[in-house]
C-alpha cells in the first residue's frame, strides 16, 4: 500500500517528516548519526516555536551543509570558529536563539580555543557536538577524540598515545567552566537514546532562548563509512568502545538541578 492508500483507508499518521526539515536529499551516508540528530533538532525548533528566532551556525566537516536541511536562518562558519561566530550573533541579536552544530575536529581540534572561551564567557548559545571520533568529510583521518588503537587514514596502524596523545574528553573539560549551565553526553543509536538526546537538545535550546548561559550537548555518534563498518556493526562498536571512554549521561545542570 502507498502512503495515500493507507491514509485513505483510515490509517492514523503516527510519524512524519519534521515540518522544518527541508525537502531535499541529504548528503549524509546511510547509517550516519547526523540524519537522526538533524531530525530531532528540526522537531525541537518547531516544538519550541523557535522557527522565527533561531539562527544556526554550521561548521566545517560533514555537517557543513546543515544549513541545507533545517528551515531557519543559518551562518556557515570557518573551520572551528562557530562559537565565535555564534558569540557575535548572540551578543548583537538578543532576541535570537543561537546554536552551533559542530563535529569533533571542528570543535575539539581547530576550534578548541573558541569552544573553551565561548563556554567560559557563558555565551547564551547551545552547542551541539557530534563526536564520532573521526574526520568524516575529508576521508576518515584521526580526530582529537579518536580512541587509542583506533585505525584511521592517518593512524593506519591505530592511534598511539606516544605519537598522537590521548583522546580529548572536551565535554568533561567544558563542564568545569563556570559559564556552562548544562552539559550532557547523549547518543542516538536506539529509540530510547534518541528520546533522551531530543530532550537534551530541547533543554539546550530553551537555555539559549532564556539566556541561561552556554549549553553543551555531546552526541556520541557513528561514522560507519569512516569506521568502515555496516551501520549496525558501527552502533555495536560504539556501544562497546566509545561509551567506555565517553560515558553517556548528564554531567552538569545548573538550570534544572536534579
Amino acid at each position, binding site marked *: 500500500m502507498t502512503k495515500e492508500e493507507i491514509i485513505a483507508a483510515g490509517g492514523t499518521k503516527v510519524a512524519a517528516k519534521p515540518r522544518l526539515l527541508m525537502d531535499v536529499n541529504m548528503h549524509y551516508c546511510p547509517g550516519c548519526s547526523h540524519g537522526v540528530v538533524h531530525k530531532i533538532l528540526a522537531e525541537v525548533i518547531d516544538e519550541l516555536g523557535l522557527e522565527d528566532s533561531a539562527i544556526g551556525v554550521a561548521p566545517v566537516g560533514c555537517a557543513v551543509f546543515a544549513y541545507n536541511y533545517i528551515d531557519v536562518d543559518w551562518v556557515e562558519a570557518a573551520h572551528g570558529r562557530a562559537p565565535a561566530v555564534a558569540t557575535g550573533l548572540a*551578543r548583537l*541579536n538578543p532576541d535570537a536563539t543561537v546554536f552551533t552544530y559542530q563535529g569533533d575536529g571542528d570543535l575539539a581540534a581547530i576550534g578548541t580555543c*573558541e569552544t573553551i572561551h565561548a563556554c567560559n564567557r557563558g555565551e547564551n548559545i547551545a552547542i551541539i557536538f557530534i563526536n564520532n571520533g573521526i574526520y568524516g568529510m575529508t576521508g576518515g583521518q584521526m580526530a582529537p577524540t579518536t580512541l587509542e588503537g583506533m585505525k584511521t587514514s592517518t593512524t593506519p596502524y591505530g592511534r598511539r598515545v606516544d605519537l598522537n596523545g590521548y583522546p580529548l574528553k572536551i565535554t568533561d573539560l567544558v563542564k568545569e567552566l563556570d559559564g556552562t549551565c548544562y552539559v550532557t553526553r547523549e547518543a542516538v543509536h536506539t529509540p530510547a537514546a534518541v528520546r533522551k538526546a531530543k530532550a537534551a537538545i530541547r533543554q539546550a535550546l530553551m537555555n539559549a532562548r532564556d539566556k541561561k548561559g552556554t549549553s553543551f550537548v555531546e552526541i556520541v555518534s557513528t561514522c560507519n563509512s569512516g569506521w568502515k563498518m555496516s551501520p549496525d556493526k558501527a552502533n555495536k562498536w560504539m556501544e562497546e568502545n566509545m561509551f567506555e571512554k565517553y560515558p553517556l549521561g548528564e554531567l552538569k545542570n545548573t538550570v534544572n538541578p536534579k
Partner: protein
Amino acid sequence: MENKEEIKLLKGNEAIAHAAIRYGVDGYFGYPITPQSEVLETLEALMPWETTGMVVLQAESEVAAINMVYGGASSGKAVMTSSSSPGVSLKQEGISYIAAGELPALIVNVMRGGPGLGTIQPSQADYFQAVKGGGHGDYHLIVLAPASVQEMADFVGLGFDLAFKYRTPAMILADGVIGQMMEKVVLPPARPRRTDEEIVALCPWAARGKFGRKQRNVSTTLELDPQAMEKNNIRLQETYRRIEAGEVRFEEYMTEDADYLIVAFGCMARICRKAIEDARACGLKVGLLRPITLWPFPTEAIKALSGQVRGILVAELNAGQMIDDVRLAVEGRTPVCHFGRTGGIVPNPQEVLNALCKDFNVEMEDAK
C-alpha cells in the same frame, strides 16, 4: 556623549573609538596589541552599551574577534574590529570569509614594523597584505589610509558607508604614528544605531532569525558547483569594478607646476608635505599625490601626472610596496624611484629630500 559636533584633543586610536560610538556602530570585537590597544581601552572606558547599546567585547584572540565580526555582519549589524600587523595576519582567514560572504564590516590595522613579531614602532609594511588580498581567494578590501587623527575619525563613518553600499569589508590602514599621535579632532554629531526595521530594509539578506520572513537567509561562502562558484566570483569582480569606477580618493598638494612628484600615504605623506615646502623654498618644484584609497588605487591621477613630471619618488615606511602600483600607473613614462625606511624608523623630511635629489640627480645647494 553630545548630540552635536564636538572638538577634542585625541590620539588617533581614541578617535576611532569615539567615532565608532557616534556613527552608531553595533559592535566592536578586539584583542589587545600595541600600538592600537587604546581603541578597545577607550571603548571600554566610554561604556557605549549604557548609551547607544553598542556591544564591546574583548575576544580571546584576533581569530575569534574577526569571526565574531563575521557573525555580527551576517546578521546585518554594523560591526568592526581593530588590531595591529601580527594580529591582522591572524584575521586574514576571517576577512576572506567576510569578503566572500559579501558582508559589510570595518577592520582597522594600525601598522607596526614586521615581519614576524617585528617591532611596536610605526610601519607601512602591510600595504601588500591590505591591498593585494591578504587572505585566500580573489577579493579586495576597500582600503582607506588616514594621514591625520581627523581622518581616523572620519574614515570610521566613510568605511561603514562604503562597506554597506557595496556589501564588502573596508579597512582603515593606519600606521603607528597616526594611531599614537594626538591632534585636534572634530567629532561628528552622534546618531542612533539602526533599528531592526532599518536593518531589515537595508539588509534583506541578513541572517538574523526569520521573524515572519517567508524565505530563510543563509550566510555561506561554500559552493561546490564550479559553474555557480565562478558566478559568485564574477559577481564579486563586478562589485570591485564599480568600486574602482566610483570610489577612488586622493589628495594633491602643489602638483600644478611640479617638476617632481612624491607619492606617499599616511604619516609619510605628512612628512613629505614638509619636504616639499623645504624643496620649494630652495626653488625645486615638487608636488605630492597622497592616495586616500589605497584600493581602489588612484591609477588615473598618477598616470596623468606622470606626463608632466621628470620623476616620481614613492616614499613609504617599507622596503617598496606601493611603488609597484605607481609603476603600473606610470607605465614607464617617467622614472620612478623609492625611498623607504623599515624596522619602525620614521624618517625626517630632509632624508626624503636627499633621496629625491640623489635619485634624480638634482642639485639643490640650499636644501639643508
